[in-house]
């Protein structure tokens, strides 16, 4: 489980990460610029862990400015954490195992995913689902449709 970067900070929401996502957050990084960008990502991740209010997109193809978004098709229950500032944007893909318990499995730079409905987006979603099946073959992710309170606390729909 990922701890907040700053000591003395309360853990309110749980985040488990795959080795791939752990490497993104912990390094080593290929160069200083990428290290800087990943530290900024760490601050965004801390926002989830410490229970800060999070903007959540209501629709897969809306909510361009949001922190969390459930991707199309909603029934796949693949969500993304959107670290959009600064460039390059980073997307972390995962699923909710329970309320306030997100399993982060894969990630991508936004630029690699190209436009909506692209093959790259579909591949990213399928890869996340595949990782989930490998790890949790007997468990389904949270599937609560528009009852967002079943996924996390303290959010604002945008």
């Amino acid at each position, binding site marked *: *489980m*990922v*701890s*907040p*970067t*700053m*000591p*003395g*900070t*309360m*853990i*309110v929401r*749980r985040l*488990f*990460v*795959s*080795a791939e996502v*752990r490497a993104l*957050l*912990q*390094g080593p990084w290929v160069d*200083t610029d990428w*290290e*800087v*960008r*990943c*530290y*900024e990502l*760490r*601050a*965004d991740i*801390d*926002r989830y862990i410490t*229970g*800060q*209010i999070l*903007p959540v*997109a209501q629709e897969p193809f809306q*909510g*361009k*400015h*949001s*922190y969390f978004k459930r991707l199309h098709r909603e029934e796949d229950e693949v969500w993304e954490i959107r670290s*959009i*500032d600064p460039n390059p944007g980073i997307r972390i893909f995962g699923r909710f*195992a*329970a*309320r306030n*318990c997100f*399993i982060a499995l894969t990630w991508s730079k936004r630029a690699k995913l190209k436009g909506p409905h692209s093959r790259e987006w579909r591949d990213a979603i399928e890869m996340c689902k595949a990782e989930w099946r*490998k*790890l*949790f*073959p*007997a*468990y389904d992710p949270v599937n609560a449709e528009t009852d967002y309170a079943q996924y996390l606390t*303290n959010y*604002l729909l*945008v």
Partner: protein
Amino acid sequence: MPNTSQTTFLSDVLSGEPIPQAKLAYFRARLGNELHAMVLQQFADQERNGKITRAQLARRIGRKPEQLTRWLGTRSNWTIETLSDLLLGMGYELKPSLVNLRTAPQSNATSQQPVAAHEHDRTVLNTAKLAETRTTICVY
């Protein structure tokens, strides 16, 4: 005496030596997120209590509703003016306070919020494969 974790993460911040770019970037982003969350929380509370709507707040500060939605969604493109206008539109102004990092708390703790029984069952997830994914980020 500070514990090892705190000493490691903050040591180059508090040492008096040049602060690494990555640490500067982390704290800039952290501050931006804190301010954004503060405004968002206030708005969410007021909206929930029926004290304000998005359209009202946008009108009060002379902005289009779409701009307000963007600002609520992300701290990107925020300026000091953005922060001031949003707070003022909700009847607030900011009075900053400081945290001395040299005397900040030393360890993390998990929320003591109660977890419903069914949630607890799901969150246990005691499978051998889950154990492979459990990892703690310790860079300090």
